[in-house]
């Protein structure tokens, strides 16, 4: 990035474009979000605490955060395996499967939701054989878990892929020529250098799953205290005109996702510090 930006640009339009950017950003994004935080001040601290610690809210938050974490863990492991296969091996259909990874990004969430439900319902293609094994996926927390895995998989793959591609081959060749077994080279040399990217992908998948709505609510069953996710509880409170309650839950979720963004930013700095080449 040697030619990035001139120190004193002679180009016109800075004042105008900057002004428009800030105005539009404020009107569309910042003002509405500020309104959300302002709304919570209508609740006293006791009331806010009461909403957050009510059994139903706590269960919903637990379901959303807990299952998102579990799904992100699955994504971390499976994402690593998928990246490894796509980057390191050649097999028929490799390019196709590489493209397929993006489908959860591109498919509208409602479509994913009804499709997964149909697939895992009692009479579905996968639901029927699973039911014979005594496993019920649709309309249980397992269904939520499955939907969250679906939605999170591209995050890990697409974050780790470029890093694995750019990895200097000499490092592992050196490790191998110094007598390290392949197992050692992979787990002691390659995977450690992927850690920042892996954690970033994990955090992105986790954050996405927490806020996810469309692909989850169809398959979830939405039983209060059992399979009700936090975003759905917000929608329910809104439809009951309990705006302050909805807002309190939203604020908790928003603060959590801001913390995750902050964490991801730190991770990115860490990753950059570790690889002076880029």
């Amino acid at each position, binding site marked *: 990035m040697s030619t990035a930006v001139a120190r004193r640009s*002679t180009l016109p339009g800075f004042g105008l474009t900057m002004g428009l950017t800030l105005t539009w950003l404020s009107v569309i*994004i910042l003002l*509405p*979000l500020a309104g959300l935080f302002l709304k919570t001040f209508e609740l006293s601290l006791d009331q806010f605490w009461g909403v957050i610690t009510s059994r139903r809210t706590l269960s919903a938050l637990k379901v959303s955060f807990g299952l998102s974490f579990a799904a992100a863990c699955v994504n971390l492991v499976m994402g690593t395996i998928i990246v490894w296969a796509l980057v390191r091996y050649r097999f028929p259909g490799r390019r196709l499967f590489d493209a397929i990874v993006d489908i959860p990004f591109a498919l509208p969430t409602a479509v994913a939701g009804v499709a997964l439900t149909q697939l895992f319902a009692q009479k579905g293609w996968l639901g029927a054989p699973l039911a014979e094994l005594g496993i019920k996926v649709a309309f249980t927390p397992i269904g939520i878990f499955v939907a969250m895995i679906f939605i999170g998989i591209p995050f890990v793959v697409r974050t780790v892929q470029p890093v694995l591609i750019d990895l200097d081959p000499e490092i592992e060749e050196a490790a191998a020529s110094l007598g390290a077994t392949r197992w050692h080279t992979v787990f002691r040399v390659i995977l450690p250098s992927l850690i920042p990217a892996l954690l970033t992908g994990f955090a992105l998948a986790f954050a996405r799953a927490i806020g996810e709505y469309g692909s989850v609510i169809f398959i979830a069953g939405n039983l209060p205290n059992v399979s009700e996710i936090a*975003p759905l509880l917000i929608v329910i409170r809104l439809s009951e005109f309990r705006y302050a309650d909805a807002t309190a839950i939203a604020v908790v979720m928003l603060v959590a996702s801001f913390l995750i963004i902050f964490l991801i930013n730190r991770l990115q700095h860490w990753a950059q510090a570790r690889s002076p080449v880029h």
Partner: protein
Amino acid sequence: MSMQTGVVTSPKQLRSYAPETDVSVASPAPRVETAPSRPVAAQRNLRTEPGPVRFIIITLAVAFLSVFVVLPLVVVFASAFSKGVGAYLAALAEPEALSAIRLTLLVAAISVTLNLVFGVIAAWAISKFDFAGKTLLVTLIDLPFSVSPVISGLVFVLLFGAQGYFGPWLQSHNVQILFAVPGIALATVFVTFPFVARALIPLMQEQGTQEEEAAISLGASGLQTFFRVTLPNIKWGLLYGVLLCNARAMGEFGAVSVVSGHIRGETNTMPLLVEILYNEYQFVSSFAIASLLAMLALITLVVKTILERRLDEGEAVDGD
């Protein structure tokens, strides 16, 4: 205008790279003097795993993607056509379906246009000038990506709902925002806010300001410079941003669901109609609409792949 960009060091793009399992051709493995007992084959494949391990990893990856990603997609089309092509087409010809398609196209057109204009303006300010707080500004533009769709809708209910900050004023002036097209468009603009700016900023930063500065010093106006110099350079990136922005705008569910009010034949977009029909057990109709959205996703992916290749080629030409 035929100015050289100069040396642009661009990061390697994903797709242009052809990974290899056998590195012996590209870079001969160093001789292993200390371990003469190591078989020759092992030396040649220092960078890969034994055959069975490879087989297991590929099988796991392919099986996982097939079950979790391909099968749901197949289910959409199988369910849509489960009662034949006639039933499928009839479902799409329903007035409710047509009105949902119309509304979705309208909302997408509004939000893509607004975000296109904003994205270009923001990218110009951010990539062509140096100023304090740039990182913060980019983070703020990215913010909608990390806000739950439901919350993206909620914020507008709090602003414009009957109990909202501007609700009473809007009511007394007879302006309908919530449960109408403006609310749906606003929520969609919110969730698709970062796409165009995000596609342009890194591209324009990489291209630098030399070409534009040359144009200005030759007497071109700001707008002339933008349309004659900058725009041709960023056209593929711009298209890329618009493509992703459009896909998300047409497919958005959570945010729109909160602000729409679900008035039949009036404020239901395609994703909302998928939900309503599904909950009414009209599976063929629901999946028929869903299949249109799935096709949109597939087309988006294909065009995205083509555009990524274009962007890579552009960079390859610049780099030489």
